[in-house]
């Protein structure tokens, strides 16, 4: 009886009695969720355009952040370092298209997937060789990202909002908005969607697959860079960030591999779900639910809606 009470009644009583704590938890979940959504967005972009599940997306986040900080440490001014890093991501996209994607065109998906594994380890090695393996501090201040916190006195308590979190949320939302406009209303956006729908038809109207792949990997690289800056500013820049990127998997399962809005909604559900779960139900099992709860949510989802919330339902004629 006690167990049932502590599962089904007590958490809600806590939420009711201390609404400021609830708001604080929701906010933290929201920010975490937005950042998961950013990582998932990188996966979705590449999956849609080239049908590749890019295992290297996580390491691209680390690699981009590491390049930025590494360049700064070597004496390059912050904003120049940012520009160079964007350039590096472009070169990376170009090289991947040339060396990995083009020779493997028309190969089964699993081959391309394995190739991105190789890419992951290449980038880990390259990053360590050039910038070293020690955790680094993100150059948030030099990039004029705000520091400190705002205390909001609401609901009879205090809710603390880190300014960097607010900035992260705003930047992420602006970027997601800009990307969806770009996809919807421009020639290249249209070409990207066309390639996602049918390679054959895209080729026949004169869309160059090679060019589109470079653009997509480049956009995914820039998304990775921004994600890296935000995550890095909240903790630090290290290879451990890669593991965080794996959280994008449950997000993708929830949202569907092919849906940009899905990535966002999925990210928010996972982010808020795991914070609320940790805070209110975590103590029941001794805490530390944050590392596995997301995967459980995803498993439950897989049973009922394998294509995800917004994924394309696959109906095949047999």
């Amino acid at each position, binding site marked *: 009886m006690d167990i049932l009470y502590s599962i089904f009644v007590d958490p809600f009583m806590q939420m009711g009695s201390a609404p400021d704590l609830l708001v604080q938890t929701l906010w933290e979940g929201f920010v975490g969720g937005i950042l998961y959504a950013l990582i998932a967005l990188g996966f979705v972009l590449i999956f849609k355009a080239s049908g590749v599940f890019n295992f290297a997306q996580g390491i691209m986040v680390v690699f981009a952040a590491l390049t930025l900080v590494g360049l700064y440490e070597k004496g390059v001014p912050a904003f120049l370092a940012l520009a160079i890093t964007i350039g590096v991501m472009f070169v990376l996209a170009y090289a991947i298209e040339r060396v990995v994607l083009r020779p493997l065109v028309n190969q089964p998906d699993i081959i391309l997937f394995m190739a991105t594994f190789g890419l992951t380890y290449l980038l880990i090695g390259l990053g360590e060789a050039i910038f070293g393996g020690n955790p680094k501090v993100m150059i948030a201040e030099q990039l004029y990202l705000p520091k400190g916190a705002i205390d909001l006195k609401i609901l009879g308590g205090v809710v603390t909002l880190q300014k960097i979190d607010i900035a992260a949320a705003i930047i992420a939302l602006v970027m997601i908005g800009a990307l969806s406009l770009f996809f919807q209303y421009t020639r290249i956006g249209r070409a990207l969607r066309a390639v996602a729908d049918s390679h*054959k038809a895209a080729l026949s109207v*004169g869309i160059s697959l090679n060019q589109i792949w470079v653009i997509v990997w480049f956009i995914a690289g820039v998304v990775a860079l921004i994600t890296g800056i935000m995550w890095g500013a909240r903790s630090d820049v290290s290879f451990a960030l890669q593991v965080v990127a794996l959280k994008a998997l449950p997000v993708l399962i929830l949202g569907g591999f092919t849906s940009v809005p899905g990535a966002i909604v999925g990210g928010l559900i996972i982010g808020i779900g795991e914070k609320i779960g940790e805070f209110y139900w975590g103590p029941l099992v001794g805490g530390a639910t944050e590392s596995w709860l997301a995967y459980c949510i995803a498993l439950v989802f897989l049973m009922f809606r394998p294509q995800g919330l917004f994924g394309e339902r696959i109906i095949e004629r047999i």
Partner: protein
Amino acid sequence: MNETMVQSQPVVASASAPEKLLTVENVTLSFGGVRALSDVSFDIRKSEIRAIIGPNGAGKTSMLNCINGFYHPQAGRITFKGKMRQRMRPYDAALQGIARTFQNVALFKGMTTLDNILTGRTLKMHRSFFWHLFRHGPAMNEEIEHRKYCEEIIDFLEIEHIRKTPVGRLPYGLQKRVELGRALAMQPDLLLLDEPMAGMNLEEKEDMCRFILDVNRQFGTTIALIEHDMGVVMDISDRVVVLEYGHKIADGSPDEVKADQRVIDAYLGVSH
């Protein structure tokens, strides 16, 4: 009007000096041990409607795939607009003015009719990636200009009512029409149609015939089409080439082809 007159009498035009738009010479294509095309030669004249017919598996679609660069024949030459080409990619074919439709409609199913047709304008838009990123200035003017062109095509094909509908939801006949629209948006010199009337009912077929003839007459577009409906083929095409098991067995006007004994044998079967 004059132009229309001239083109509606292709026999006269071809009797003088027919300008060849595309020449296929001794093309051979095989997949492993399977010969899809052996030593096929024919030509397509400017502004004509050229039909490619033959029983199933005769190599008709393979022929189209060679022409627009999806396949690369092992032997033979393809000359388009006087230029011979080696291992051309579909992208280059599109750039040179070859558009096509597919046997099993290949549209961008998640996109609207208008967006699908706009993708046909891809090669005609030149503003750089960065203008598009901001969707501003010249990129915006360009967008409006091309949108206007696409609306004209939509008018022409009488699909105004489905302009904003995602094409995945449209019935098959309309999808085929949208696919034709996308190919037309490329303002092609050569339009390849792979079974434009397959799976259509009588009324839809009549509409499609009318569109094909109108495109040919109004814009002077050269059309090569594969079709199984013999009534349609004999009605609308100027010349017909017949393939069987990868070989060309006949080539000529519809009447000549109809009378050819090998063609009759190929279609009706013959005891050996």
